[in-house]
């Protein structure tokens, strides 16, 4: 049991119907089960379109699931109302990918960071100033940033403001949806250090969503690999990186460029990710899988527990 438990979560979006044709569904998330452990960093990795961000939106209750259950500290979040819903909103916060789009250009940094305090009535109005200065300090910004507008800041600084805003309500869980990918390499390291420090000091649980395997390996305790709306492998970070089992995980790890080329000819995955509207029958990965066997295009593999990890593949 974790702080967040997700059980057989599904989210299917209706596709705009053409005249006389059958209603089609885009299966963004298709039966996902995992949990975010208290005080740990869980990561979701996968290519674009694999459903990572939809999972984040579902956990935040920004969009209702088609089926399945999400619990926060044991309570089903779909049943929350009134005060308990407000408490939930306070406990789970998010940082988005694009710090240029996720700050209101007409609000000063002070307004942005203090807004959650007003909404949740956490501090007295007179205490806002000190509280905001303290938060900005935590993310490495000076107090004089308070009265400036987002356009006066660089991408890295804006991402710091977004983190400060998320921290304002002292959340228990922080969802970070590709928080580094819009930033330059040298700035990525600065933001990653801030997140790491927060995690260590405040014991915030993280759901970290990224496609950058190097960052995931460095930052997270557990990794779930997603492909076309399903989790294909879920393991402890070191197990996954040292000994990936699922063919997709193997291919994904080998396709990332390395600083120290090992001279080995890389295995390169053929083809594109199929459209999530027409997910292949059987195992969704079978058309691209180099280790395909007979049953793969007919039967969806079940999730199997193997040496403390979960794999969804007919080979095991």
């Amino acid at each position: 049991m974790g702080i967040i438990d997700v059980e057989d979560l599904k989210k299917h979006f209706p596709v705009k119907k053409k005249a006389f044709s059958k209603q089609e569904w885009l299966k963004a998330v298709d039966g996902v089960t995992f949990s975010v452990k208290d005080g740990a960093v869980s990561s979701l990795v996968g290519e674009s379109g694999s459903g990572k961000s939809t999972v984040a939106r579902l956990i935040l209750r920004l969009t209702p699931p088609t089926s399945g259950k999400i619990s926060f500290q044991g309570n089903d979040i779909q049943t929350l109302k009134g005060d308990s819903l407000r408490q939930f909103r306070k406990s789970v916060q998010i940082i988005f990918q694009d710090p240029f789009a996720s700050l209101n250009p007409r609000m000063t940094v002070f307004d942005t960071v203090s807004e959650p305090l007003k909404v949740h009535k956490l501090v007295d109005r007179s205490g806002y100033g000190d509280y905001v200065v303290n938060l900005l300090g935590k993310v490495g910004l000076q107090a004089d940033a308070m009265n400036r507008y987002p356009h006066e800041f660089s991408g890295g600084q804006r991402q710091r403001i977004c983190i400060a805003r998320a921290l304002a309500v002292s959340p228990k869980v922080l969802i970070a949806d590709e928080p580094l990918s819009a930033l330059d390499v040298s700035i990525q390291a600065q933001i990653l250090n801030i997140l790491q420090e927060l995690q260590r000091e405040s014991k915030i649980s993280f759901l970290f969503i990224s496609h950058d395997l190097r960052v995931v390996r460095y930052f997270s305790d557990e990794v779930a690999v997603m492909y076309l709306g399903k989790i294909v492998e879920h393991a402890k970070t070191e197990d996954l990186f040292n000994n990936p089992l699922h063919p997709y995980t193997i291919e994904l790890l080998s396709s990332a460029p390395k600083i120290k080329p090992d001279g080995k000819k890389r295995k390169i995955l053929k083809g594109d990710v199929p459209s999530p509207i027409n997910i292949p029958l059987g195992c969704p990965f079978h058309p691209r899988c180099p280790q395909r066997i007979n049953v793969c295009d007919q039967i969806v593999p079940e999730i199997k527990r193997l040496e403390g990890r979960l794999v969804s593949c007919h080979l095991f």
Partner: protein
Amino acid sequence: MSLLTVRDLTISFRAKKHPLQIVTNLNFSIDRSEVFGLVGESGCGKSLTALSIMGILPQNAVSEGEIFYNGRNLLKLDNESMRKLRGKELSMIFQEPMTSLNPVLTIGYQISEMLTTHEGFSTKEAMGRATELLRAVRIPSPEIRVREYPHQMSGGMRQRVMIAIAIACNPSLLIADEPTTALDVTIQAQILELLMDLKQEKNMSILLITHDIAVIAENADRAAVMYAGRIMEASRVSNILSDPKHPYTIGLLESLPKTKGIPLKPIPGSVPRPDRLPPGCKFSDRCGYKISDCLKEEPVLREISPGHFSRCIRAEEMKWEL
């Protein structure tokens, strides 16, 4: 002899008061069938350098210096001769495969346009050749794809089409400006493998521009690290990675996460605006190795060991291991 030599290239934008200098005194050369990498963060002038080689800088930008291609100075060529080179001998692929193709023309038309313009093919011949080119960039069922439109293809496929257009006339130099940044890792690996195979087959040189030092590590022969419009370090890729001699290069390598639990050592601060660069060494305000001499005058790019250049007065003291 090298295929392309860039000498003292300076690019600036006309502005109200002073011209805004983005690229300053750039010098590098690319040999035949070599992959040369340009690495740097956004705003360091990598893309402007590429645009200036292609002669497609924005209207309000001015370039000075010399760019020699096969002994001819590209910056001195008139528009007509430049047009004949562009697309035929020099070609370029861009970061955004989503926006660099024309949405209302078929893939086949966009490829064959190169052949009818530069090689004098008839429309029919050109369409046939377009199918072959799609096959060369490994697009499945090219006979069907050649009649399709860009929106019917995925990002990776569109980038392949861009490559097909770029290699249609067998160019000597292909400029790839962040060719894989918008793509997923598995697709990135496919595209880079394709580029390297084509380079072998067609014996062309590639100028590979990227912000990802790992992409350079695996694919380039030599590389230059750019910062604030200047080359900070240039050498064979293996030298840059195993024995970097500039604090900025070291900073970039240190920024990459390695062992879990060890805090990263990021480069402090952020890239300064081009009109607010510090005096002396342009990296001095973020540099951990700064001494008072760094601010006096800008260091020159000097040869530390054969073929290894660094723009740092303390380059000899740098010791760093991966």
